[in-house]
């Protein structure tokens, strides 16, 4: 055995193929595959031809720039649009600072958003000057606060406080006060869609986690309350819950007490998604082996600490795809609030099409709205993939 030597390292056989070879192997390997390929090419040609002809020659895209304001903020009064701009500026500063302090994912997301801002700034179409102005200021703010926040770890706490205060401040800012206040019924378009979606996502997550833990609790009262809640809510269509929130809640509430309509929609969306979130999280909890609980207990961790540091981190990372799927569904479900007379992104299309100038332009408008939805949902899905890679899901 002493004479055993390795002669030379042998490379694995090459799996690379020349393009021609690839074509032959994959598309023209035999007569019926060749036929199928040719048929598909012809089909695709006609399909794309008609789509492209419509998009570039027949469609009347003027409806989009002309209604950009309605699409973005609904019937929010023009003279108050500075309020929206201010909210965007504060968001820009917070995002810039977070990107600078935490780097990583924050940085990538913020960079992507800054790019959108820059694109709007440079857009060749004739957008409203105030939109361009807002985009310029927001993009600049992101850049400046990013530079200021870079490696300033001592700012961490303040930025987190800033994010927490962001929501009440935003509601206050958009609503205004006194005589000049703007009813939430005027909130609309993409603004309303984003507010509903973000509030729903942020609020349904902790509630869902608590319900999932509750459903696995050893205490019967907590377990049964969780089970009943989850099963009842999952058994109802979202439309029903929205109607109940909109029509029945005011009847049950003590006289004179009014809950804002948008707030009611937020509550309905949150409570609805929380039930689904709970089941997603429960799936993750069941995937955590018993040995993990035992090891945590053996180290002396209490139940809340075991959950916080050992079980939930593992449970949640294993169900990221399901959770993000739930977030995406929630984002699209916000379009259902139009049935309780709130005009979010999809709902405002009715207002636009009601204008005699734009009747009959449904395809253009709906296609544009679909693209907006797609951009946001695809971004969510993309971010979740980065999160998974960052956490090393499947690796450790």
């Amino acid at each position, binding site marked *: 055995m002493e004479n055993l030597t390795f002669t030379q390292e042998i490379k694995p056989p090459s799996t690379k193929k020349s393009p021609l070879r690839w074509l032959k192997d994959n598309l023209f390997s035999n007569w019926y595959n060749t036929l199928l390929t040719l048929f598909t090419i012809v089909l695709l040609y006609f399909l794309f031809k008609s789509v492209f002809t419509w998009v570039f020659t027949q469609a009347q895209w003027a409806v989009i720039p002309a209604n950009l304001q309605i699409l973005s903020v609904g019937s929010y009064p023009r003279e108050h649009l500075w309020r929206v701009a201010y909210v965007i500026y504060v968001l820009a500063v917070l995002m810039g600072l977070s990107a600078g302090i935490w780097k990583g994912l924050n940085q990538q997301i913020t960079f992507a958003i800054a790019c959108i801002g820059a694109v709007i700034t440079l857009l060749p179409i004739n957008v409203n000057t105030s939109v361009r102005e807002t985009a310029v200021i927001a993009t600049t703010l992101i850049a400046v606060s990013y530079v200021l926040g870079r490696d300033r770890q001592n700012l961490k706490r303040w930025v987190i406080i800033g994010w927490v205060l962001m929501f009440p401040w935003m509601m206050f800012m958009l609503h205004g006060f006194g005589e000049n206040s703007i009813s939430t019924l005027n909130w609309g378009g993409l603004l309303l869609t984003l507010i509903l979606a973000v509030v729903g996502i942020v609020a349904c997550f902790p509630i869902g986690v608590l319900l999932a833990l509750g459903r696995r609790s050893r205490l019967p009262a907590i377990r049964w309350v969780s089970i009943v809640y989850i099963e009842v809510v999952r058994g109802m269509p979202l439309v029903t819950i929205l109607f109940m929130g909109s029509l029945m809640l005011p009847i049950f509430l003590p006289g004179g007490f009014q809950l804002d309509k948008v707030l009611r929609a937020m509550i309905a969306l949150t409570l609805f998604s929380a039930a689904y979130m709970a089941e997603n999280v429960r799936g993750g909890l069941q995937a955590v*082996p018993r*040995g*993990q609980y*035992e*090891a*945590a*207990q*053996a*180290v*002396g*961790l*209490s139940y809340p*600490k075991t959950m916080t*540091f*050992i079980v939930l*981190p*593992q449970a949640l*990372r294993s169900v990221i795809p399901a959770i993000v799927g739930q977030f995406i569904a929630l984002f699209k479900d916000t379009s259902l609030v139009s049935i309780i007379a709130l005009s979010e992104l999809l709902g405002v299309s009715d207002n636009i099409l009601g204008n005699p100038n734009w009747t009959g332009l449904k395809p253009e408008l709906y296609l544009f709205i679909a693209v907006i939805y797609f951009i946001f949902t695809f971004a969510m899905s993309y971010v979740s993939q980065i999160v998974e890679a960052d*956490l*090393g899901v499947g*690796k*450790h």
Partner: protein
Amino acid sequence: MNENENITNDPIIVCEDVHKWFDDFHVLKGITTSFKKGEKAVICGPSGSGKSTFIRTINRLEEHQRGTIIVDGIELSNDLRNINLIRQEVGMVFQQFNLFPHLSNLQNITLGPIRVRKMTKSDAEEAALALLDRMGIEDQAYKYPAEISGGQQQRVAIARALAMEPKIMLFDEPTSALDPEMISEVLDVMRELARSGMTMLVVTHEMGFAREVADRVMFFDEGVVVEEAAPVDFFDNPQHDRTKLFISQTLQH
């Protein structure tokens, strides 16, 4: 080494008539025994004999249903404070390691000291690195459990238990899930720990280790302690037939 100067006469664990059922199955049928400070006891027996269940009752991973267990002067009852106090005194090493896969090896070790003992992060990390050094794997600190070998994982698990500065260490078949060439690196660490005077209860099939390190060998079968003796007597002069059979079977290979 068996005439261990570290052993004192104070019992640190006292078990009185301990019973345990899994549904209708009577796993522990009245275990009465005690362990002294610094004593090393090896617990062996066929599978299903209740030996693992017994050491798991000592830090209440399993609840006993009759009898009393007193660990370091604290009785194990349903009082949660007592249980958490005892768990800080008793370290445990599992057959399947049970490391936390989402934390680095270093974080696995510092988690308990930081979250339970309220140590500062820097102190805990310093202590953890010293422990990894003692285990001979200080270069694995910043890797994740899935990135190191089974023997190394088990040594991280031992370090994790030791980081809580326990008075007692429980080992539940610590080498049974390891590839043969990795068993000795874990046993070496356990030998070193035994020399340092730790009180150790070890469930194992490693009879060589038992002969060398143990002060007492206990043989479990069908939920009772059939025989207990110093290793010399246990291996060379077993009294019961079941013990004789077990020894002949385990020493054959």
